[in-house]
Each structure stands twice: as C-alpha cells, then as structure tokens.
C-alpha cells in the first residue's frame, strides 16, 4: 500500500533547469551480470545530486561509465545538452568532469602543488606550471574554503586535507561537474561538515555535484535531488525535500526496513574483559596503542568510536591474538598473555573470545576457500569437525555450514561456493555466523556492516543484540557513528592510540563525540 505507492514513484523531480548531465538508457553487463539496466538520469546544472543504493546496485559502474573507465553496451551520454562519447578519463576531463575517488589517487611523497599539476603540466619545464597552479590554488582557496598549504607533502596531510587536494585537482582541470564517491567514509563529523560547506559553495558558484553514498543522513542533509538505484536499475529520482530517510531506505531495499535498532535496556553483569594500560608498537616502532584501559561486562556492548586509523584496528588485533602488545588483559578474571609468546588466535578462541575482524576479505575469510572451508576457519581444530585423529570430517563440516547458512540467511545457501562469489553482505554473514554460533563469552567485532547492504545490516545488528541478550560481552569497533550510537550501551572514543573519554549514548550527541574523535577530549 504505502510501499507500492513509494516504489511506483518515478521521476517526480524532472529538473526544469538546464541539464549538466543526461544519461539515456545506459546498459552495461559483465558476462552474465547486468550491472546497469537501461538507466536514465537527468542532473540539473548547479545542483547537488545524490545517488544512493546498496552495494552492488550499480552506482560505481554507472559513474565509471561516465568517467570513461567502462564503455556502456548501449545508451547515450549528454553533457551540457550535447551527445558525447567518453572512451577514457582524459575525454571525461575534457568534457568537464572531475572525479574524487573513495581511495585517493595522490602521489604520497609529492607536494600538494606537484600533485595538482601532475598530468596537466604545460611546456618543457615545471616552473611555469607550478607558478600558475599556485595562483589558481590561491583563488580557489578563497572562493571555496578549500585552503591547503600548497607546499605541504601529501603524506603529512590529514585525510580531510588530502580529499581537498583531490577536489582541487579536479577544479584545476576546470571541472564543471564533480563526482564524489563515498567522500565521508574516512572523515570525522567535523571534516564532513567542512566538506559539505565546500560542496555548497561550489554549487552556489554554478558547479554540478554528483554525490555517491550509502549514508541516508548525508543525502538528506546536502542534496537537492536524489536518485535511488537497486539491482542495476534506477528505481526513482526524487526531490530531497519531498522524501524521508525511511522512504529512501525502502526504495533502496525494495521492502520496509527498520532504520532504528530496537533494543531493550542493558542488564550488565560481571566484568568479562578487563584491559589495563595496553600498549602496541608497530613494525615501524610507532606506538599505536598508548595505554588503553577499558572494561566490558556481560550483557553489554561497549562501542569504540573514532576516525579510522586511531588505534581501533590495533586494539581488536591485539585482543584477537593477531598482533602482540604489552599490558594487562584479563578475561573472566583470568589473565591473558598478549605478548604472543604463549598465545595466538587459537588460544584466544579456546578461552571464549570470538573475533569478527574489520577486514573480512583479508583477515576474516580466505576468498578462494569455499563457504564450508571458511566456516571452519579458526575452528579447524574443533572436535566436531574431526573424523578421527588424522582426518577432518568434511561432510559434517559441510552439513554444519549448510545449517548455519540457513540460520543466517546467507544467499545463495550453497556451502560449496567460494567465498569470493558471495556479495559483501553475505560474506559478512558467513563470518558473523561462524563467530556468533560459537557462543563466545566475548565477541570482538570490527566494522560489522562495512560494505554491507541495508537488509543485511539490520540482520547483523539483530544478531549482535541477541548475543548481548544472551549475556555475552561485546566490544564493537565502527567508524559509523550512527551504528555506534544505536548499538552501544557505553561509548568510548579513541584518538591517536588513547581513549579520549567515555559517554553514554543517550547523554551525548554527535557533536560531542566528534570533538572527542578529533582529539579534543577531557583528558
């Protein structure tokens, strides 16, 4: 009823202003997979246009076609009303399109200025280009709040500043249309706000911005129009002011989704994990954890918030037995060796610690292994997987995997498929199923829903809460502040290897957490 009404809505926001981009009937398939099906979209000049969709909905493919990385099987591209062909990224740049990728494409040991002119040098010598770029940069900085020190070396810049360099690069090449792919994934809330100010400034100067994201909040905050993609199709384009996050989520997934996690009040019991003065020094002798102390009790979720790269990964890894450190760690009152001399991931598991790692593709799964081989990963010594002292019981393992895939709704529920042939969300479900089904006393879980579609996010959140209901301790690390806020019973914020402070989710807000994440804490 309501659902059908929303799903049936098409192009309520056909822009009347002149168009910057028009795509007509774009289709692209990779072998049997149709990534884009007959996609048409119209982006008005001087607007911020959001493109939202789950992973694998075809957003990136569409933008890659626009930027000349892929050639569409059929369809037309019009830039500023004129039909163009874009066989490569040089043509895209000439057509006035600039792209800011999720993973920056900067030369780390070049200065900002050198990066900006890279590929756009003029003449035989560098000096004139550099001088010209310096002047242009100064003007851009004044016009759009895009201030970056032109002589700074890129690797010394913060992520937010590096992103500005990418934007400057595009503007220096006289881009009229700026495409940003998941630009806020690596930013603090403050940096994201700054980025949005920059984007609004650009729009007001007549630039066109295309923003690809999976964060509904950002779409609502900054875009003028939003297009929703689902399974390779463009399901709707709407005016942002006329829609709501719930409507968009439903359009993305194709069914009603609970955006807010329903959870009962915490009922914390005895202390399960106690950490005192935990320190980790990495291979380059840099101290990544500088004396972490925390506690997680049974039936409680402790959320660790922070911008990526402030020691959260190291915390999970040292607790999970992947890397070594010094300090006191106690599990259920029993002290645990973290130096790596007497313990590893196996002894952690034996003590009841399960670990869903942040990076499922490189740590949590072996992508070439089948689902059933992955289901034993880390638990390959478990007695129920052995036939006898010598041989493993692969049949039992396959049957066990089939059951767990059924229970966790992994699609397709085929234990003999390789992990790499599942979507991100289903890969994550395999890892979560493997770790949660062990019924651990302590679950370490990092970025549980990174690159996971909305439907699966809801499911994984429910599983984490169910484990909490069962009286287990959970240490949750996520860079998604929404996720931390909605799941955690307590929130600790990490910055530069330290815990800057602890807050209760209902007594804090994003602004306060954002300040802690930026290192302005109470310590």
């Amino acid at each position, binding site marked *: 009823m309501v659902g059908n009404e929303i799903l049936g809505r098409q192009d309520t926001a056909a822009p009347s202003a002149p168009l910057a981009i028009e795509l007509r009937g774009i289709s692209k398939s990779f*072998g*049997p997979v149709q990534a884009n099906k007959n996609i048409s979209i119209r982006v008005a000049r001087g607007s911020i246009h959001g493109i939202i969709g789950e992973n694998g909905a075809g957003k990136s493919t569409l933008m890659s076609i626009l930027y000349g990385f892929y050639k569409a099987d059929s369809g037309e591209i019009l830039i500023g009303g004129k039909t163009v062909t874009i066989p490569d990224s040089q043509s895209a740049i000439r057509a006035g399109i600039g792209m800011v990728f999720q993973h920056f494409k900067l030369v780390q040991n070049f200065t900002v200025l050198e990066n900006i002119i890279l590929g756009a040098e003029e003449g035989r010598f560098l000096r004139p280009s550099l001088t010209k770029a310096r002047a242009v940069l100064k003007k851009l900085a004044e016009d759009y709040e895009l201030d970056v020190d032109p002589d700074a070396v890129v690797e010394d810049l913060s992520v937010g500043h590096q992103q500005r360099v990418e934007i400057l690069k595009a503007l220096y090449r006289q881009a009229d249309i700026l495409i940003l792919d998941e630009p806020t994934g690596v930013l603090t809330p403050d940096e994201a706000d700054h980025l949005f100010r920059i984007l609004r400034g650009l729009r007001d100067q007549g630039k066109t911005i295309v923003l690809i994201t999976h964060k509904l909040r950002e779409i609502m905050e900054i875009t003028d129009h939003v297009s929703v993609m689902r399974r390779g199709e463009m399901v709707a384009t709407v005016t942002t002011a006329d829609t709501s996050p719930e409507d968009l989520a439903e359009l993305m997934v194709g069914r009603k989704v609970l955006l807010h996690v329903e959870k009962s009040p915490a009922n914390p019991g005895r202390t399960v994990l106690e950490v005192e003065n935990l320190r980790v020094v990495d291979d380059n002798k840099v101290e990544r954890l500088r004396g972490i102390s925390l506690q997680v009790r049974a039936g409680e979720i402790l959320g660790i918030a922070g911008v990526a790269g402030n020691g959260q990964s190291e915390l999970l890894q040292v607790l*999970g*037995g*992947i890397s070594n450190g010094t300090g006191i760690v106690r599990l259920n009152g029993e002290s645990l060796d973290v130096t790596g001399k007497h313990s*590893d*991931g*196996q*002894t*952690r*598991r034996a003590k009841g610690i399960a*670990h869903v*790692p942040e990076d499922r593709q*490189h*740590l*949590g*799964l*072996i*992508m*070439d*292994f089948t689902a059933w*081989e992955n289901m*034993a*990963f*880390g638990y*390959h*010594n478990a007695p129920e997987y*052995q036939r006898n002292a*010598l*041989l*493993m019981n*692969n049949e039992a393992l396959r049957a066990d995997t089939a059951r767990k895939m059924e229970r966790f709704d992994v699609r397709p529920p085929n234990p003999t498929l390789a992990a790499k*042939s599942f979507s991100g969300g289903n890969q994550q479900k395999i890892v979560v199923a493997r770790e949660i089904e062990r019924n651990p006393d302590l679950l370490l879980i990092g970025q549980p829903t990174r690159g996971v579609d909305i439907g699966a996010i809801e499911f994984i959140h429910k599983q984490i809460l169910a484990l909490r209901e069962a009286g287990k301790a959970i240490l949750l690390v996520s860079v998604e502040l929404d996720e931390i806020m909605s799941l955690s019973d307590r929130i600790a914020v990490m910055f530069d290897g330290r815990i800057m402070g602890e807050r209760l989710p209902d007594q804090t807000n994003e602004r306060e957490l954002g300040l802690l994440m930026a290192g302005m804490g109470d310590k």
Partner: protein
Amino acid sequence: MDRMPKWADALLVPLISLIIAFFISGLVILAIGEDPIAAMKLMIDGALGSTYGWGYTLYYATNFMFTGLAVAVAFHAGLFNIGGEGQATLGGLGVAVVCLALPWPHWSLALGAAVIGAAAFGALWAAVPAWLQAKRGSHIVITTIMFNFIAASLLNYVLVNIMRPVGSMDPASARFAVETKLPRLHEILGLVGIPFNNRNPANISLLIAMAACVLVWVLIWHTRLGYQIRAFGKSEKAAVYAGIRPVRITMYAMLISGGLAGMMAVNNVMGEAQRLVLNSVEGAGFIGIAVALMGRNHPFGVFLAAILFGFLYQGGAELALWTKIPRELIVVVQALVILFTGALDNMVRMPVERVFMAFRKAK
C-alpha cells in the same frame, strides 16, 4: 557461477596447450630439416610402443612424481620450492648411507629404511631454507636454489673423500648388497600374470610414488595440517587471524616437500643404479616444477603430468638414438610444453572460456 565445467579446466585446456606445443615443436623439427611426423612416430613408438619403452617412461615418471609432489605441497603453502634437485641429491645420500650401513637381510626391510633415510635427508636439506624463510625472511626461492649448488658440491666431496671404495677411480659409492635390490616392475606384474619387459629400470618405487600421490591428496584436502597449509598459502594475514602459526606451517610444509623430493632417490639410486653416483638426479628436481605446474598442484594432475614428462624423456632419448635430431631438441619440446601449459595458460584458457560462455548463452 563457474565460467566453465571442471573437466574442461582440468583436462581440455592442458590438452589444447599440449597440442599447440607439439605443433610448434614440429615446426622446429621441420626447420632443422627433419620430418616431424616421423619424429613423433619414433617418440611414441620408443616410449609407448613396447613394454620396454613403457618401463623407461614409468621409471622417469616415478622420479617426476616425487619431485612434482614436492613442488606441489610447498606451493599449497605459498612457498616456491625450487630446491627439489638438491633435496633429491641429499635423498640419494640418505639411501646410500642406509643401504651401506647395515647388512640388510631382505629388500623389504631395506626399502622401508631407505624411504625413511631418503625422506629424512631431503627434509633436512629443505629445513634450512625453510627456517631462514620463516624466521629471517630470506626468500625461499633464492635459498633453495643456492642449496642445490651446495648439495652438488657436498655430494662431490662425500663421494670422493668418504664413500669412494679404496682403490676405485670412480667418484661413486660402493655397490649396494644384492639383498637390497628392489623388485622390478616385470617381477611385480609377473605375479599377476602380465608379461612385461625385463630390461628396464622401472621398479617398485612406482607404487610408492603412486601411494604418495594418494597420501598427499589426503594430506592436503582431508587433514587439519593440509587445511592449515592451504589457508597459510592463500593468505598469511588471514592465517594469523585464525591462529595458524606461520613459522610452524612453513617448516612442516617444507619438511614434507623436501622429504618427497628426497624419496625420489629410492627410485634412481636404490631401484636403478644400486650405488650412489655424481649427478644422479639428472635435472628431475627441476622437471618437478614443470610437472607441478602442469598438474595444477593437484596430486592426480602431478601423476598424469609426470607420465607425460616420462614419455618426453624416454621418447627424446629414442629420438637422439635413431635420428640426427640432437638430444637437446627434446629440451626445446619440454620447454614449449612448459611454456604453453604453464606460462601461457591464459592464452588458451580465455578463448575456451569464451566458447563455453557463448555456448551457455545460446542455450
């Protein structure tokens, strides 16, 4: 969804590669003024046309099975062991020490001890590079190839200065006692009434090699150690997450690999020569790399590829004997086989995949 069925991946693609390799070999033979059809016929006749030829083919294949398995096991752990040559050399030393140390009453006892001796010496020779790789990060490709040279020099020294019988001018060990002589293939087949030529060196080691293929298959796909080896080989980072210790797995995989390479000596030293001579391995350690490559590191693939290379070896020897085609040409043929089945694999695979995809679409 798989791009093509398993049988096509495992059999069709190598077969097409092989045909191309033979075709180009034919062109080379034509270029030196010989008749490729006659040469091919001679190779097939010489290697497979009689039980005598088969005997030699299988004798060589036995060597290649051991060294091929050695490379395959290490490869599953992500380690490229190209020291099979040296490990097999040391395996020979192990066999000689075992056979000469005691007055063995019966070949079966001597065989058991020789297998252990060969494997132990081969494993020992692989252990040092493995340790250096696991603990110090010295690249195993570099260290194993260095150890091939050290093994050759060591054998030289041991044969000349220690094992050479007094008064002998030949850098070789004493002949083993006649009790240690292994049953030949014609004797074994004779038991079940199959007539087989008796002037070839194929012996009971072939059965050991075949058993080793099965055991390696069980090891890799049905044991915890094999699971850990494969996991480590696919991703060391992920293995550490799972609590698999890299040092331990590197050592185990290389010990097994070196042991398998060493066991080759049971065939050539004990089964054929009945004494230890210089350069008894004759490059079989390196052929093992090609065999593993062509067999896709699967023990049964290694078995088939070993027989193919046995055929090339024996056929090549016949070619050199009966025509003006030099023996070196067979190295060219082997190189082409390796080139097409290994290095240029995708050249054949991609078009075949496309054919299957098109076929599937048409359905």
